[in-house]
């Protein structure tokens, strides 16, 4: 009441409806107002998606707890789960399509946000000529750009942080429980794209890339297409560099390999997983056999024929020719703890690219004539 009264007193010339609420001032107000509708739509998508993940995740969690299958999933079959696999499979049958769809949505979302929200931001200014309106006000081009990109980036930071929290929890709930290949482990692609701080990095990168493309291409439709392709390319590059600071480790296990099998032994074999002795939930990078004089013989599969005398049957001719000198099984891996190094590397690379793209925008906007 008092504020309304005060504004009436201070403006006796007449009602000025726009003067009542001033959250943002100057160019920042313009930056927010221009992206108001797309930001509201994005906010609605965020709320719906988070709500969906919370509902579906809680229901899955409930089933897991009531059926006591916390330790049992489709990837690992511990001994104690033998009589509970029915419940785990029923859970998969019930929700796997919904989980796969959600995973794809989470993976595509930053790319779509960059293409449909960020790319048109500046491209439309050039397509409709309104950049000329903004650039002839009392605000320098740099300040205009700072407001034009700063406001959406700040809102993206907040929104994607909320999404990151929810989707990290969600990924933890569904990981390994469903026959959705990207969601088996922390290192499979759906899991690593949709959890941790990486989510925030990917969204900020998409916005910066979309804005840069819009500024360079200056056409809305072309910018959308170029942004989508460029975002995918850049995301692929970041993904390739995700283990920059997570070198592989190696573990050695004594092993004895059998020579050429006598005919009567051929039936006495049992296919078993090699005892690589890597920690639980670590990412296997490669394994093979090591001879006494240091020769490495890589193996493709970690399932081999285990003979009754405790030796293993050689799967390759090379192994066979060195079988008497093979002493150890080596296995390279990344432990589960590297997940966070991976996420912070992805985030750091995304943010570095974001900063470089924003610098490019700032440089470019000065030079547009």
């Amino acid at each position, binding site marked *: 009441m008092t504020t309304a009264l005060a504004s009436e007193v201070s403006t006796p010339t007449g009602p000025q409806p726009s003067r009542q609420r001033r959250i943002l001032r100057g160019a920042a107000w313009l930056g927010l107002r221009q992206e108001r509708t797309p930001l509201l739509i994005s906010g609605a998508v965020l709320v719906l998606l988070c709500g969906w993940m919370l509902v579906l995740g809680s229901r899955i969690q409930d089933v897991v707890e009531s059926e006591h299958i916390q330790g049992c999933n489709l990837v690992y079959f511990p001994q104690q789960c033998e009589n509970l696999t029915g419940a785990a499979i029923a859970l998969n049958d019930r929700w796997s399509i919904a989980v796969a769809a959600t995973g794809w949505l989470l993976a595509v979302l930053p790319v779509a946000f960059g293409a449909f929200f960020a790319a048109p931001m500046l491209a439309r200014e050039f397509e409709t000529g309104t950049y000329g309106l903004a650039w002839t006000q*009392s*605000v320098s081009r740099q300040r205009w750009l700072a407001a034009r990109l700063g406001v959406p980036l700040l809102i993206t930071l907040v929104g994607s942080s909320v999404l990151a929290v929810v989707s990290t929890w969600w990924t933890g709930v569904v990981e390994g429980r469903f026959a959705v290949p990207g969601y088996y482990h922390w290192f499979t692609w759906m899991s690593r794209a949709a959890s941790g701080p990486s989510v925030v990095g990917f969204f900020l990168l998409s916005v910066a890339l979309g804005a840069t493309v819009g500024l360079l291409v200056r056409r809305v439709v072309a910018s959308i297409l170029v942004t989508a392709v460029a975002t995918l390319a850049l995301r692929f590059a970041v993904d390739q560099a995700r283990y920059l600071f997570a070198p592989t480790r190696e573990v050695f296990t004594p092993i004895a390999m059998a020579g050429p099998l006598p005919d009567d032994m051929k039936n006495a074999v049992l296919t078993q997983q090699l005892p690589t002795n890597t920690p639980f939930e670590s990412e296997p990078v490669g394994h093979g056999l090591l001879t006494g004089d240091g020769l490495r013989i890589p193996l493709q599969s970690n399932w081999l024929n285990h003979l009754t005398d405790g030796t293993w049957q050689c799967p390759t001719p090379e192994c066979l020719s060195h079988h008497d000198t093979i002493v150890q099984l080596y296995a390279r891996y990344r432990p589960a703890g590297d997940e966070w190094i991976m996420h912070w590397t992805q985030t750091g690379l995304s943010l570095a690219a974001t900063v470089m793209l924003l610098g490019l925008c700032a440089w470019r906007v000065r030079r547009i004539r």
Partner: protein
Amino acid sequence: MNHPAQQQDRPTGAAPALEAVGLGLQYRRRWALRDCDLRLPSGRVCALVGPNGAGKSTLMALAAGLLAPTEGSVTVFGNGPREAGSLRRMAYLRQDKPLYPRFTVAETLRAGRELNPGWDQAIAERIVRLGDLPLDAKVGTLTAGQRTRVAFALVLGKRPDLLMLDEPLADVDPVARQELTGILMAEAAEHGTTILISSHVLAELDGVCDHVTVLRNGRIRLSSDVEDLLDDHRLVVGAAAVDSDGAPPELAHHEIVELRRTGRQTTALLKPSGAIDPRWDTSRPNLEDILIAYLRTPDPQDRPAAGAGAQTAGRATELTTGREEVTAR
């Protein structure tokens, strides 16, 4: 860089509102503007006249800092147009009048207020109200004439010292045109605003501007005070000359701007030097007569560049050259 206004630190009050020195802009191969020297003192209302593609919009966009010159320089009150101080002091209404289509009228005015420290909401609202524009209407739903009014409100609300208007009134009705021109002139008179206005409608410039600049093919063809222009020129009508190739001998000692023959009658626009032969019917031309004459005839400086093979230059033009050579001797 050797610009006088930049060399000495003149007080901004003394610097011309707009000064171009050897200004040129090249688009790929074509020069949109070339060798443009223009000095617009503060407080003038200057008309910028020229055919389509003459470089009017280019000159304004360069002065507004939207384009960067290929050669030469342009300053606004002594400073580069992209400096924050210059941006604050000038307003530019582009020919296509870009506005944010999804903003309401009120939001458009608010954008003006948010982006300009010297914003005058009263004048902006007055312009909008006079057009009966609802403040909550989306700009995208307005007619071209209504959008022009909003764009006008935006540039006048900025309270600029230099106002550049590129074909501002092309799509408003005659009543609104008169009304907006009236507001513009009142603002200019009250605040000493320098106005540079380009227009095709030559008649509407009469009585509005006190200075006129004619652009042709990217070069300045004429730049003069309107009073001087009206005083210096005479329109003469008489019988066709005997010599069909030359100018009428009795007009030979005057500078002929343009010469036209219709049947037996010859009409000429002159810059008289001395008395005009009384057999010719002499009258004082209006601004439109003078501007059309200059627009129709190419700049004498352009002619050697145009080449002898260029047949587009009319015969009357060639005659003018001959006369000028005579005058020069």
